[in-house]
């Protein structure tokens, strides 16, 4: 089966490469600025993983192993969840209701421009990590599955493989 005859022009490749960094910057911007403007950790996570998906589509799954950040993103899902959980449950240990953010409502917070450093932002980072990890992880899984499928199909056609695929669908 020669399904996957990827035809990527040089132009696509260059565009994809150039776009990666801006996509990440936009993502981080959207996340941090969330409290002031449109966007939040969720959108940021999706944007960033779309960026990664673009790389994979253009350069193939081996691209995933090149950047350590991307390589570790799937594990980051659980780190993100852990961060979010900590922001939720640490106040409970201190006797406050769940997810009581710090600094408390109405009090001044350390800020950098309009960006304020509050625990809600940490929570948003957790959200970002989960979504980003999910996006990258799924992209990677799909891409690897395709690799596996085409490499095996290229060598020889195994009846068992087709049977299994049949069951799955």
């Amino acid at each position, binding site marked *: *089966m020669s*399904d*996957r005859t990827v035809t990527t022009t040089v132009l696509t490749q260059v565009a994809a490469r150039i776009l990666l960094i801006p996509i990440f910057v936009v993502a981080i911007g959207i996340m941090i600025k*969330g*409290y*002031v*403007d*449109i*966007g*939040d*950790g*969720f*959108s940021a996570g*999706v*944007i960033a*993983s*779309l960026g990664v*998906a673009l790389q994979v*589509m253009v350069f193939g799954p081996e691209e995933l192993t090149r950047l350590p950040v991307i390589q570790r993103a*799937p594990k980051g*899902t*659980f780190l*993100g*969840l852990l961060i*979010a*959980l900590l922001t*939720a449950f640490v106040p409970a240990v201190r006797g406050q209701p*769940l*997810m009581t*953010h710090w*600094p408390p*409502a*109405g009090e001044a*917070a350390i800020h950098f421009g309009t960006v*304020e450093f*509050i625990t*809600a*932002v940490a*929570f*948003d980072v*957790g*959200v970002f990590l*989960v*979504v980003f*990890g*999910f996006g990258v*992880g*799924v*992209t990677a*899984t*799909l*891409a690897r*599955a*395709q690799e596996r499928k085409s490499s095996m199909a290229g060598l020889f056609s195994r009846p068992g493989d*087709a049977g*299994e*695929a*049949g069951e*799955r*669908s």
Partner: protein
Amino acid sequence: MTWVNDPNPALVVLIVALLAPLVTVILGFWDTRNTAGAAVATTAAAFAAAVWGAWNGDASYSVVWSETWGIRFEIHLDGLASMYAVLATGIGLLIAVYASGYMPLHRHHTGKRRADDVRFFGFLLLFMAAMVGLVMSQDLILLFVFWDLTAIASYFLIGYDSEEEESRTAALMALLVTGVSAVGVLVGALLLWSEYRTFSLPLLFQSAEPSTTVTWAVSLILVGALAKSAQFPLHFWLPRAMAAPTPVSAYLHSAAMVAAGVFLIGRIYPLVSLDTRVLDALIVIGGASMVVGGLVALTRDVFKQVLAYSTISQYGYVVVMFGIGGEYGVAGATFYVIAHAIAKSALFMTAGAVTEATGSARLADVGGLWRRMPWLAVGSAMASAGLMALPFTIGFFKDELFFAGADGRGQLIQWFAVAGATLSFAYIARFWAGIFLGPRQGDVQPVPASLVIPVGVLGALTVLGGIWVEPFRWLAEQAARVSFGEELEINLAYHLDTRTENLMALSVYGLGAVVLLTGRWWHQPVERLVKIGNRIGPARGYALALYGMNRLSDSIHDFEVRDLRSRIATILIPSGALVLLAVIYSPTQDTFRFTSIESGDLPLLLMLGVAAASGVMVVIPQDHLRMALTLSGVGFSLAVVYALLGAPDVALVAVLIETIFTVVFIGILVLIPRPILRYERNLRAPRIRLGRDAIIAFIAGSVAFVVVWSALSRPSASTTVIGRHIEQSPLAHGYDVVTVILADFRGFDTMGEITVIAIAFVGILSLMRAGRLR
């Protein structure tokens, strides 16, 4: 330690009885050779306790069992309880002795292991313990618990030889008849509660007045009682239950199970006697059982079958006597149970011993055994004489009381009593004579003494009771007083005069002899009658019901929908119907409203139109890729709608979600082998199914539409929380309300949703990695 110095007899009797199965099972597990010995020892202890308790008498114990439901663990060792407890443990003891000799032989026949004895004795003693608990219970729920415990024990005992199909059928039948009818006891108890707000029998006896509810309640409880006592028309399980090993049959028929039914009548007799219609019904049912059981018993050939039908017939007497009521009726019924229990268990054990000795279980195959098994012959002769109500046996008095009770109730009942007693005389005589008299038939192997001694003991007791009746009289009197609810005296003596009872007894002997001698003339017709009864009787009804139920089950199973589309349809169509029902039911005015459309709404409408059109497009058959893209078209156009509604945050999320989903979708499509995609694309559903699917889809859409429309026809609530959200956002250090809601006000929801994402991720990883979740 007052408890040790002055123990409560009621508790002692119950605890010793309950310990019997427990100790036996534990010792049996430890070493299976202990089982029989342990069973005999523990039953002996239970018997001793019961006798001691009966002597010390009238103790009660009560403790709250459940506060909420007002049920108490209330036991009372009154006369009635004492009598049945003594019977259950005493006969239980002899049965245990008998079984210790019988079970090794049974094991030998059936190829069972020694370990199976533990199960047998465990359930046998549980049976006994449940009886002891049952007879002492004063709370209807507690009574129900012990009642069903006897059903459980009997189920396992009847089905003991579970490798035989006959045993399995018999066990299931016994369980269904007695277990399901036990629900009647429960419902009756609850009915009584609804009227008097108590489950306590003493309180109920105090306050119950004749009323429809009480009559219904009592009738329901009696259904349970009569089914357990194998009364017509729920009698058919009992002959089948003979599939059990003989010790079980002997016990079941004399002092447990079947006796439990008449015990219950005696226990709630103060309520039963409130309505004479109930009493009359008892006479009819008891009478029918007497006749049916008696006639069938006369024609059976298998020992245990003869005895089984005789039991039905003889408990018919007891029920009739309860129906006759009054001092004699109640006293007679109670006394009858004692006399019957002693004699009947002896006969069953005889049957078992003969079968073990000769290898045959039919009257036709044996005969003239009195020479070869003299001790057994004598023992069972005494027991038979008891059941035949010959003088100088305890049985004489049982019939005397019966006749005395019938005396006051007119000719019909009197004739009936004589007829019943005649039948009983005849079939018992036929049984005993068929085995021990006549030409010699059958090879006799020696049997262990433990199979004969209990018969001898019981036979001796039967005769002893005919000579020195006092202990039995006293026991029955104490019991009958409880049932009767007031003072009552039983006077038993031989009178050498021509009082009605004596005349009736004499006519019974005469008629019985005639019946026996004229066997060759009536045998054929009666046999034919029994055959007809089998063809149209309740047993047949049971079999048909069971068969029909299985057939019905199969046929409605064929109607189950099996494919995915239909399964979805069966959710959508009924919900459509329910929504329609709700629309019809609810007040219609203002439910659905239109508002005017302004020119500014035009772009919004346009995008909604696009979304709707893409939604419709999806269902038009096309290849997978285009389908995925059309689907994402719905999402993108909705994103525009959000943007137009002034929700840029939501619009952004919607666009991003649609994008990544489309990417993932396409990624998955690439994974599916081409031929499969091609095959699916070229699938053309039959026109009729397309039409059906379209209708279903339309219904589904309408349901959602109608509900949403009706909600939107309401003006949105005047004070929504969103107002408070906007007000408070600055407090939460935020200017973008949506983000603040997501991360702070409702951050917990976000927390949950990212957990969902993580779980989905976990799932995808494990499914895709190796193609399966492992």
